[in-house]
């Protein structure tokens, strides 16, 4: 901006060319001023000259006129003398003579004193006066006097005429000179006026140019300001509607585009919304730091942008959540783009010197007749959730049922939260029975939701919800504390139950919370239950989350003295390594094996039981529902069994009574000690 300004309004001193121009300007100033001064001098000079000449002319005119009068009177005197004979009088001659004398005086005074003309006139006057005019009146001398007078006067007349001629010549010359001087003066004035006009015009031009350049400067400043303001506004607008990290449109712009698209869509080609959530982004952030996370997001944003059609808008809604609005999209377009997006993210990203793989779960929502932008987005969210649930790196298309499910879920979430507050979560107990002696070795504590209106709600329904919402922490703690308290009470109040253990299920989320081992410790201390009488049940899937952290946590728990059970063994990876590594005390065989073994004759259960025993674990068969199954279990060498055949989970009071009744059935104290331990 500054540069352009300098170009428009150059500094006069900046370049040699300007300097040359300045020199020329100075020269012109000098020429102009000297011309003006010269002409001015001429004007003044000729004005003075003209003044003097005018005076000369007027004096010459005066002299000429009066010389003329003098000459005329002299001639009249001569005439009077001529006429003297025919009855002229001396008086008449005297009058004429007097008049001649008068004019002689007057004319003489018109010349400077002692000038030749003045002297001449004086001499003439003396000559006139020195003549004896009295003789003219005397008859005796009249004739000769007249002749003498005439001679004198005619001589005088000649002398006066000479003076007159001379003066007339001077008058004409002076007049001509005066006229010439006047013309010269007028010419000079004309030149001067022309110069003044030229200067005035130049000055006006300068004024105009100055005004114009001032205007131009003001205008350019205005333009600059306006454009800067516009740029700033543009930036602000851009910032307001774009994500700072990826420069993708943000949620606000996304919603606007979506609304625009909805407003413009004819129903044949509907709008589709893709909601993209990165799988496993959080771990990247946690392990590699936010810098790497941000870089990854930028790279992901770039790939996403390359995958969509020109009309589509990719936006970052926040965190690792992206969205695409596709105007005029057929269902197959949306799925095609989704597939492309998933494929595009398949190749690992080189971020922070490491190769990182992320995948995306995509939810697709199509325009419905009544959809608003918000509904469409929440539909996509539901579909994305479904995709995530179905396994990662895939897409799901929204269907109405999904929404119903989601609504149901949302309602359940709310209810569950309230249920935890109101204490609607009860703890049920299911016995684990020694298959050899039928003694009750332990009671498994199970959370049950007793809803005042809907009755009992299955753990299969509410436990996943609790895990997702984080309520599992509260529920787990409640169950743990209550189970410990109850078990201790039974141990002390029910005869024959002194060695009774209690097993409590632990979720991955609980296990990952740092405070969990402290919670276990507190529950034991508060209830007074010996650590060895508490068994925590974990599942194999937990070990996948963060094996290091889980192992550390389990190690702390083991050091308290609490025992561990591997729940649902066989439903997951059935990893022997993890069994070994975690130092599990109790192996619970998943009930699916019982079902399978119904056909295979219990060989699988036997194999697993042998494995457990080999690893010095007690083995419990779960889900025993029929006497045949119990036989299988017993035949396979399992230590204990659990299932509806033996007892369904019971409320505390019922369990209490069950324990009292069971005491009568067996005299041996229940024991879950590993074989040989």
């Amino acid at each position, binding site marked *: 901006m500054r540069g352009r300004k300098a170009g428009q309004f150059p500094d*006069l001193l900046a370049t040699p060319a300007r300097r040359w*121009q*300045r020199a*020329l*300007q*100075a020269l*012109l*100033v000098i020429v*102009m*001023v000297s011309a*003006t001064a010269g002409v*001015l001098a001429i*004007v*003044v000079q*000729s*004005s*003075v000259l*003209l*003044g*003097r000449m*005018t*005076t000369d002319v*007027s004096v010459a005119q005066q002299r000429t006129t009066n010389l003329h*009068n003098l000459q*005329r*009177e002299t001639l*009249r005197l001569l005439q009077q003398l001529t006429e003297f004979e025919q009855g002229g009088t001396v*008086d008449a001659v*005297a*009058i004429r*003579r*007097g*008049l*001649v*004398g*008068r004019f*002689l*005086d*007057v004319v003489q*005074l018109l010349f400077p004193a002692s000038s030749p003309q003045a002297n001449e006139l004086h001499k003439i006057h003396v000559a006139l006066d020195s003549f004896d005019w009295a003789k003219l009146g005397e008859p005796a001398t009249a004739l000769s006097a007249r002749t003498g007078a005439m001679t004198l006067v005619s001589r005088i007349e000649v002398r006066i005429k000479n003076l007159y001629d001379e003066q007339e010549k001077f008058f004409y010359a002076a007049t001509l000179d005066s006229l010439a001087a006047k013309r010269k*003066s007028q010419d*000079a*004035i004309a030149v*001067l*006026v022309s*110069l*003044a006009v030229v*200067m*005035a015009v*130049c*000055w006006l*031009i*300068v004024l105009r*140019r*100055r005004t114009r350049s001032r205007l131009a400067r003001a205008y350019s400043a205005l333009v600059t300001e306006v454009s800067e303001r516009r740029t700033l506004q543009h930036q602000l607008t851009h910032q307001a509607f774009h994500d700072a990290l990826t420069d993708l449109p943000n949620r606000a712009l996304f919603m606007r585009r979506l609304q625009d698209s909805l407003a413009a869509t004819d129903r044949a080609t509907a709008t589709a919304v893709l909601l993209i959530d990165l799988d496993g982004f959080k771990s990247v952030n946690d392990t590699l730091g936010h810098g790497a996370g941000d870089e990854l997001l930028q790279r992901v944003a770039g790939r996403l942008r390359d995958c969509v059609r020109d009309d589509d808008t990719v936006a970052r809604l926040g965190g690792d959540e992206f969205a695409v609005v596709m105007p005029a999209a057929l269902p197959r377009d949306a799925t095609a783009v989704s597939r492309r997006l998933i494929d595009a993210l398949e190749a690992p990203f080189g971020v922070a010197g490491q190769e990182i793989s992320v995948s995306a779960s995509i939810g697709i929502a199509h325009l419905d007749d009544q959809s608003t932008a918000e509904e469409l987005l929440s539909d996509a969210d539901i579909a994305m959730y479904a995709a995530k649930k179905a396994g990662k790196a895939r897409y799901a298309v929204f269907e109405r049922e999904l929404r119903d499910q989601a609504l149901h879920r949302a309602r359940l979430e709310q209810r569950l939260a309230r249920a935890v507050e109101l204490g609607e979560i009860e703890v049920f107990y299911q016995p684990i029975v020694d298959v050899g002696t039928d003694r009750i070795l332990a009671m498994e504590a199970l959370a049950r939701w007793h809803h005042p209106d809907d009755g009992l709600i299955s753990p299969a329904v509410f436990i996943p919800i609790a895990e997702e919402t984080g309520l599992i922490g509260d529920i787990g703690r409640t169950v743990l504390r209550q189970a410990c308290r109850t078990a201790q009470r039974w141990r002390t109040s029910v005869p024959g139950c002194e060695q009774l253990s209690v097993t409590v299920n632990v979720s991955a989320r609980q296990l990952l919370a740092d405070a969990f081992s402290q919670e276990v410790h507190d529950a034991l201390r508060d209830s007074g239950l010996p650590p060895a009488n508490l068994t925590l049940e974990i599942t194999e899937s937990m070990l996948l989350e963060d094996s290091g952290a889980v192992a550390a946590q389990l190690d702390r728990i083991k050091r308290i003295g609490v025992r561990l059970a591997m729940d649902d063994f066989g439903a997951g990876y059935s990893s022997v390594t993890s069994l070994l590594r975690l130092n599990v005390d109790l192996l619970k065989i998943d009930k699916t094996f019982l079902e399978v073994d119904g056909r295979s004759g219990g060989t699988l259960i036997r194999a697993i039981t042998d494995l457990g025993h080999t690893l010095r674990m007690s083995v419990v068969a779960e889900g025993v529902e029929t006497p045949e199954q119990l036989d299988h279990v017993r035949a396979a060498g399992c230590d204990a069994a659990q299932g509806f055949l033996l007892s369904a989970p019971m409320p505390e009071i019922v369990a209490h009574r069950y324990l009292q009744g069971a005491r009568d059935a067996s005299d041996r104290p229940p024991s879950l000690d590993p074989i040989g331990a």
Partner: protein
Amino acid sequence: MRPLVGLMSRLGLRCLTVTGVLALAAACGGQAATQTTKAEPKANASASAVSAATLKPGQDVPPPAGKPAFTMTGKIAATNQTGGLAFDLPTVERLAIYEVRLYEPWTKQNTAFRGVWLQDLLAVAGVKADATKLHFVALDDYTVDLTMADIRAGGILLATRAGDGSALPIDKGGPTRIVFLNGVKSGANADQWIWSLKAIDVQ
């Protein structure tokens, strides 16, 4: 044009103003010069009464005893000869005589004269109401016209003698001549100073 523009921007208004003022001064200078050369020294004009009038308006003017000094003709009531009035010097000098001292433009000297106010003369001659001007004729036939308004404004003297009381010879402009007190408008032009009066015609 650009350098010229630059020039003007440097000197600009100042240059123009100076030039303009000088040009104006120069243009006026010539005129001023021609006028100032005509400036004349002004004497303190004074007039004082020498003798009172014995010939008053309404009285008959006696015919001239000797040679008449000048005649008056035209729109006058009083007559003493056919067609008008003839004055000899003694008759004229019966009017109130004043002595004046003034600057005489022809001799360029302060000079004293004695004479009668032209208004007084006209009153004696009984100039009619519809008269507008006086037509003066000199012995050399030179003529001058003065309006009645000029004369009523005063300050115009018909001089009959020099300041010392001596008669005016013809070669001093006598026997009678018209002089103007300094500052009288009609006497500003020296040509109006007619001398050696012969006749006055009232028109």
